[in-house]
């Protein structure tokens, strides 16, 4: 798979202020939650943030290790719950999803793209070669004076043959449909899990658009 030429410095290994031991210990006791986006539009991530003050109610119990607030590429330690936005559309997505599966006890598909591929999966009906041709060679915005080229570099993730729903790549435990799902749906699932209840999304919270 993609191996960058330049040595990579993962952002979570960058120097950071050390926490005082008490805070650290308290944080580590909590339920660790992470969220990351694969091929999506970050709308689901916004819905996650849309939990707003509801999230505060849970903060006694959870610690959000990785989200769009921290933007680390990998989760530094094992998590209880991982939320995945977006489907699998390139090899970097595969690696990330594998990493999350290995490091999360429970993995949840959030939103249409993670659940079934969503809007990016509209390319699944067209062979990849044609997609690339249309996007990079025949596009109305292609540069006319430079030779047209398809991005191809070890640092750039390779696009997969199709866009895959997450659960066709690794095992997923729960699904929250919607494009994006309401914050209330995400909260309901998180709240159920945190409080040890069986996850149950009521009909009123199920949406596909």
């Amino acid at each position: 798979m993609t191996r960058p030429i330049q040595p990579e410095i993962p952002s979570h290994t960058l120097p950071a202020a050390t926490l005082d031991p008490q805070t650290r210990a308290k944080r580590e006791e909590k339920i660790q939650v992470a969220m990351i986006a694969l091929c999506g539009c970050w709308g689901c991530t916004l819905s996650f943030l849309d939990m707003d003050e509801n999230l505060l109610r849970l903060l006694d119990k959870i610690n959000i290790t990785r989200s769009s607030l921290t933007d680390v590429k990998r989760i530094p330690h094992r998590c209880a719950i991982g939320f995945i936005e977006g489907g699998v559309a390139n090899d970097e997505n595969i690696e990330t999803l594998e990493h999350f599966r290995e490091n999360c006890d429970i993995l949840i598909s959030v939103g249409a793209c993670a659940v079934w591929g969503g809007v990016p999966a509209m390319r699944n009906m067209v062979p990849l070669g044609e997609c690339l041709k249309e996007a990079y060679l025949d596009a109305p915005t292609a540069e006319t004076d430079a030779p047209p080229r398809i991005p191809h570099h070890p640092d750039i993730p390779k696009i997969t043959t199709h866009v895959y729903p997450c659960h066709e790549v690794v095992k997923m435990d729960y699904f929250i449909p919607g494009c994006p799902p309401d914050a209330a749906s995400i909260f309901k699932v998180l709240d159920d899990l945190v409080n040890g209840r069986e996850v149950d999304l009521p009909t009123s919270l199920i949406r596909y658009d």
Partner: protein
Amino acid sequence: MTQGIEVNETMTTNIHPILERYHADKTRLIDMLWDIQRQAGYIPDAAVTALAEGLNMSANDVRETLTFYHFFHDKPAGRHTLYLADTVIARMQGYDEVRATLERETGTTFGSVDPSATFGLYDTNCIGLSDQEPAMMVDEVVFTRLTPEKVRTIINRLKQGATPSEIANPDQFDTRRLEYVQAQVADNIRICGPVFFQQDRPHAQILEKTLDLLPEQVVEQVTLSRIRGRGGAGFPTGLKWRLGREAPGREKVVICNADEGEPGTFKDRVLLTRSPRDVLLGMTVAAHAIGARTGILYLRAEYWYLKDYLEQQITDLRAERLLGRSILGREFDFDIRIQMGAGAYVCGDETALIESCEGKRGTPRVKPPYPIQQGYLGMPTCINNVETFAAVTAIMEQGADWFSSLGTPESSGTRLLSVSGDCAAPGIYEIEWGVSLNEVLDTVGARNTRAVQISGPSGECVSAAADGERRLCYSDLSCNGSFMIFDHSRDLLRVVEHFMRFFVDESCGICVPCRAGGVDLHHKIRLIIAGRATRQDLDDIVNWGNLMRGTSRCGLGTTAPKPLLTTLEKFPQIYREKLARPQGPLLPSFDLENATREYEHACQALAQEKSK
């Protein structure tokens, strides 16, 4: 087959005789489509439009029927149209070499027509010749026991201008004669009697005797014989006839289901070849019993080579006053027409068959009403299998007691088995209900048997080791006649895969579970063969299979999961051996290589294209 008629606007004028022939009756649409195709080699758009106009239908409405059937072509299909039967039995007997030779010799690939438009090459499912495969249809004749050598000869002669009939029937027997049929196809009757294939049956006497009885008495006789429908479902024939008798309606219909589509069965082919009068007389007996005047013999298009011969039998019976007006001088009119099918396994379902007789897509109807209440054109319709009608003739000759003394108490009489696969002598065996699986295997000379597929893909796969003492009868091993034997050298998973693909091919698509579910089950067996399945996939197979069994609209959908379900039950180890051991977080079913390969390929291809 093609007389090279002009295919353009003139087609409009050529449609008129065809419309007239069938009095512009749209329920005869399938016959009209056949007439056009036999003239023009295919059914051109212009013909569809003209036909639609003449029948007050939209052109697409005509296309609904046209595109439903496998043997109708809306594009040129070659001067000669070849269909090689792709069956599990053929694949055990040199199919691959025959297929490759056909492609090489005709200069085209399956699913297309060669550049000179001489040969159209197509796959087809079982054509009822599992006792002499590989086999193929060329236009309206068949060639059996194919070898690469034989294929080369046939194709060469066709290229030189010989007709298929000249090659298959070198003595040029009239198509109406038995010799014509037998020049193409061996009967392979290995064991017969006491019920079927009896020589010199006195048909006129039997009919006299029957007509002397009141209809109710005939129903009574059939009921007393305890004969059950030979199509597979085993519905008591006497009860069906009684319901037909009692069904209100001035006009009633008797239909003989000769759409013998279950892979591996060919007994009806042999009955129609060797005992057509037994079958036609059985229909007449039914007509008397229920009070019908109209009879239809629905003949699958794969048996086109039997059509003229059977028409002649009907003509002869009319001449002898055993059919037609005032049968045997009595106030009893009953006549039979042959309805050709056009390639659809689902038409073996009786309501789909009726739809097809009415010129429509072979889509099974919603039941109730049942055909016996409202069938063909809304009339009470009694549909029985070819073998049932033939047996009825024997019952009327020799008596209900004689028949019911054969077999077992709940499965009276005998049954014709179409035996194929790994045995010394494939062919037709008449057995008494109640014999054990081992006895049959012994009789047919099967050695080293691993499994037997009873009743075709829609039946069950049994283990010779575990089920040898089971009895063939309705209460134990029910059998519709198909009996395919696999020895220990055969890969059963491949057999299952083939059967599952068969059901995907043949699903009419009217209901969701069969149309969509079949594809997913086929996907599962391919996953298993590829070594990418897990325990979860086995659980899915059972659950999804039960979904199809429970919710499908007709027998095709409810039986389609059976190849998987029955082998999973009888031979779980062949599945377990193939399960993947998951390594790492990626699911074994996720094909990483395939997912990441295409990008490189596409980039390379586009770079090359650009540099040109």
